[in-house]
C-alpha cells in the first residue's frame, strides 16, 4: 500500500470529443513497473496495436511521471513519454526535464494520456484537476518560446508549466520535438505526433501538493543528497556535458564528419575551456537541481551576435563534429534555431552530416539542394539547412523525413545514414569502444547512448574492460540498460541519481520515505522487466535480430586515424557481443524474450 509518491490516477484526454476522464492506476502496475518509462510502456502495450500509424488519430501520447517526480529531493524533474515514433515507425520512449511533470503530479495525476485528433487547433489548460480545451488557431505557427509565452499569458497562470511544439512539427519534420520550457522531449518525433493530433501546447498550473510517506525522513535526506550531488558533479556545474568533447576526441571516439573518423582537428574551439572563455554566460538548473549543469552561452560579436542557447555535448557533437563545424558560435545559433523550430538537435545534426557526405560524393547535387553547396565544415550551410528543415522548404522538406523515409526515397544514399532502427546515432564513435556499438544496437528506441547504456566510464576509464574486447560487453550493456530503465521510471535525473543511492547496486531509503514501500532491493529486477516489456512491444511491431545491427560502415571501414586507428568491428565480432547480450537477457537467438522473461512480461502486461 503506497502512502506517498503516487497519486493513483491518470488523466485521459480525448481531443476529438474535447473530453477528459480521470482513471485509477492499479497499484499492481506501479509495483511491477515503478512509474515513468515502465508504466508508460505498459499502457503503450495495452493500448497501441502494432499497426497504428504514428500520425493517425489512433496513436497516443502517453506521459507518465515517477514516484519521485516533483518531490523535495535533488532533480526530481523527469517525466516520460511513450508513443509510436514517426521517425522510426516503432515504439518510442523519450524523457524530459522541466516543471511540467512535477506540476502534473501536483494536479493529482501520475500520468496523462492524450488520444484522438482535434477538430480545431487546441491547447490544453490543466488546473484545479480539470482540463480546458482552448483554441490555438492563432498560435499554430509561433515558434516555441513565443507559443509558451502566449500560453502562459492566456493559460492557467503566468507561472504555469508549458510544453509546446514549434513550426517544424507542422512542417512535417519527423524528428520534431516537444519543448518543455527550455528542456525537451527531444528524440523520436513526439512533437510531430502532437502536431498530427492538432495539439499545440499543454499548460499545467503549479499549485497543489504531492503526498509523501515520511516527510521528516525526506527532509533529512535532502541536504545530504544535495551536498553530495553538488560536490561530486562539480565539473557538470562548471562545464556541463560538453566537458566530454575533448575527452572523446583524445580517445579517438568523437563523432566526426558523419562518422568517417574519430578525431576532429577543430575540437579545440568546441572544448569546454574555449567555450567557457568565449561564450559562457552562466550555469542554469532544472527543477530542484543543486548541480545546474546547463551552460547558457551567447554569441557576443560577429554575424551571429545575439544568439543564445545552452548546447549539450550531444548537440555539439552532432551540429559540430558530425557536420565538421568547429565554429561554436554557429552551434549556439543552430541549437537556438532547433529549440525555436522544435527540432531534435541530434538527429538534425546527423541528417545534415549525411547530406554533406552524400553531396561530396555526388549523390546529391545543387539541383537537389536548392543551390546550396552542402559540404562538411560549412557553418552557414548547416544553419541554412536547419532553417529550411524547420520551415519545410525544398531540400529541408526532404531532410525532415528522417533516415527511414530517406532510405526509401534515396536508396543509393542509404549506406551513409548513421542510424539504428531509424534513429540517428549519438555523438560517440562506436568503433572506438565496442560496448557503445552494442548499446546503439540494442537500445529499445534505436541508436541511443542513454536508453542503450552509457558505457564510457566502465569501458574506457575504469580498467575493468578492454574497450576493444568483445567478451563481457553483453553483461555490461545489460547492466547499464537495466539501471537506466529503473532510473527513467523513478522521475529523477541521471546526473544526480548516485547521490541518492540509485546505482547498479541500489541502496538507501529514499523510495521507502517517498512511497512507504521499499522498492530498493528490487530496482534492478524491475529495470530488467521494463527492458523485456519493451522488447516484447518491439517484437510485436516486427523488430528482429536484423534490426539490432549497425550501419555497414561500422563493420567494413576501419577508423583512419587517432588512438583507435585501424579499428573495425565486423559483423562476426558484433555477433559475439549480441549473442552474449541475448543469452543474459534470456532472449532467443532472434532477440525474442523467451521462457521466464516472456512469461513475466506477458503476465505483467495483464
Amino acid at each position, binding site marked *: 500500500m503506497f502512502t506517498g509518491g503516487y497519486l493513483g490516477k491518470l488523466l485521459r484526454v480525448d481531443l476529438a470529443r474535447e473530453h477528459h476522464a480521470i482513471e485509477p492506476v492499479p497499484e499492481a502496475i506501479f509495483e511491477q513497473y515503478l512509474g515513468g518509462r515502465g508504466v508508460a510502456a505498459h499502457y503503450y502495450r495495452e493500448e497501441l496495436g502494432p499497426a497504428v500509424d504514428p500520425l493517425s488519430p489512433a496513436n497516443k501520447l502517453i506521459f507518465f511521471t515517477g514516484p519521485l517526480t516533483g518531490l523535495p529531493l535533488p532533480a526530481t524533474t523527469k517525466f516520460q513519454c511513450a508513443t509510436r515514433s514517426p521517425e522510426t515507425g516503432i515504439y518510442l520512449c523519450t524523457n524530459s526535464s522541466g516543471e511540467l511533470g512535477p506540476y502534473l503530479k501536483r494536479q493529482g495525476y501520475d500520468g496523462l494520456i492524450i488520444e484522438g485528433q482535434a477538430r480545431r487547433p487546441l491547447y490544453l489548460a490543466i488546473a484545479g484537476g480539470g482540463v480546458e480545451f482552448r483554441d490555438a488557431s492563432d498560435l499554430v505557427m509561433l515558434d516555441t518560446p513565443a507559443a509558451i509565452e502566449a500560453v502562459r499569458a492566456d493559460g492557467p497562470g503566468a507561472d504555469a508549466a508549458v510544453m509546446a511544439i514549434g513550426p517544424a512539427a507542422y512542417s512535417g519534420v519527423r524528428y520534431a520535438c516537444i519543448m518543455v520550457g527550455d528542456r525537451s522531449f527531444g528524440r523520436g518525433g513526439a512533437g510531430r505526433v502532437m502536431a498530427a493530433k492538432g495539439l499545440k501546447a499543454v499548460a499545467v498550473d503549479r499549485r497543489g501538493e504531492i503526498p509523501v510517506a515520511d516527510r521528516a525522513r525526506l527532509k533529512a535526506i535532502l541536504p545530504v543528497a544535495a551536498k553530495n550531488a553538488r560536490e*561530486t*558533479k562539480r*565539473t*557538470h556545474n*562548471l*562545464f556541463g*556535458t560538453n*566537458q*566530454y568533447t*575533448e*575527452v572523446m576526441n*583524445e*580517445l579517438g571516439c568523437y563523432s566526426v564528419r558523419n562518422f568517417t573518423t574519430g578525431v576532429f582537428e577543430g575540437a579545440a574551439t568546441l572544448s*569546454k*575551456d574555449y567555450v567557457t572563455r568565449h561564450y559562457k554566460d552562466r550555469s542554469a538548473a532544472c527543477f530542484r537541481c543543486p548541480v545546474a*549543469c546547463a551552460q547558457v552561452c551567447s554569441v557576443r560579436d560577429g554575424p551571429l551576435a545575439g544568439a543564445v542557447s545552452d548546447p549539450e*555535448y*550531444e548537440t555539439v557533437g552532432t551540429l559540430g563534429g558530425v557536420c565538421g563545424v568547429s565554429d561554436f558560435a554557429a552551434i549556439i545559433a543552430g541549437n537556438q534555431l532547433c529549440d525555436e523550430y522544435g527540432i531534435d538537435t541530434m538527429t538534425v545534426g546527423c541528417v545534415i552530416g549525411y547530406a554533406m557526405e552524400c553531396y561530396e560524393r555526388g549523390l546529391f547535387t545543387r539541383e537537389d539542394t536548392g543551390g546550396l553547396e552542402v559540404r562538411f565544415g560549412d557553418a552557414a550551410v548547416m544553419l541554412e539547412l536547419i532553417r529550411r528543415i524547420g520551415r519545410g522548404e525544398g531540400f529541408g522538406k526532404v531532410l525532415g523525413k528522417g533516415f527511414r523515409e530517406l532510405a526509401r526515397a534515396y536508396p543509393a544514399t542509404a549506406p551513409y545514414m548513421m542510424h539504428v532502427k531509424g534513429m540517428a546515432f549519438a555523438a560517440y564513435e562506436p568503433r572506438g569502444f565496442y560496448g557503445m556499438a552494442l548499446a546503439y544496437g540494442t537500445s529499445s528506441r534505436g541508436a541511443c*547512448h*542513454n536508453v542503450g547504456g*552509457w558505457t*564510457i*566510464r566502465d569501458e*574506457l*576509464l*575504469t*580498467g*575493468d*574492460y*578492454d*574497450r576493444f574486447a568483445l567478451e563481457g560487453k553483453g553483461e555490461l550493456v545489460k547492466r547499464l540498460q537495466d539501471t537506466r530503465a529503473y532510473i527513467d521510471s523513478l522521475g529523477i535525473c*541521471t*546526473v544526480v*541519481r*548516485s547521490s541518492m543511492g540509485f546505482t547498479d547496486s541500489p541502496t538507501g531509503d529514499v523510495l521507502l520515505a517517498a512511497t512507504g514501500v521499499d522498492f530498493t532491493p528490487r530496482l534492478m529486477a524491475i529495470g530488467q522487466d521494463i527492458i523485456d516489456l519493451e522488447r516484447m512491444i518491439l517484437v510485436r511491431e516486427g523488430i528482429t535480430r536484423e534490426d539490432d545491427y549497425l550501419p555497414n560502415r561500422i563493420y567494413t571501414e576501419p577508423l583512419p586515424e587517432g*588512438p583507435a586507428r585501424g579499428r573495425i568491428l565486423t559483423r562476426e565480432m558484433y555477433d559475439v557481443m549480441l549473442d552474449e547480450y541475448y543469452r543474459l537477457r534470456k532472449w532467443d537467438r532472434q532477440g525474442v524474450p523467451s521462457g521466464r522473461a516472456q512469461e513475466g512480461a506477458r503476465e505483467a502486461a495483464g
Partner: protein
Amino acid sequence: MIRVEVRFAGLPRTETGVKAETLELEPDITLGTLVERLNQRYSWEIGRGESQFILLNQRGLRRERWAHTRLEDGDSVLVISAIAGG
C-alpha cells in the same frame, strides 16, 4: 632514461593548464610515482575523487594498480575526468 608522454583532458587539462608534455624519467619508475611527481609539479591532486581516471596506452587502469605498474619507454599516459551522464 625513458621517455613518457603525458596528456591531460577534461578537468585535469583545465586545472594544470597543460595539454601534453613528454617527460624523461628513470627506468623502472611506476605510474604511481609519476602521479606523485605530477601532483607536486602542478600542486594539484591527480586522481582525486572518483571522477578522475588514468589511461596507460589508451587502457584504463584502476588506481590500486598504479603503484605496481612499471612504465616503459614510449608509454603514453592520459589523465582524464568523466562523470556518469552525457
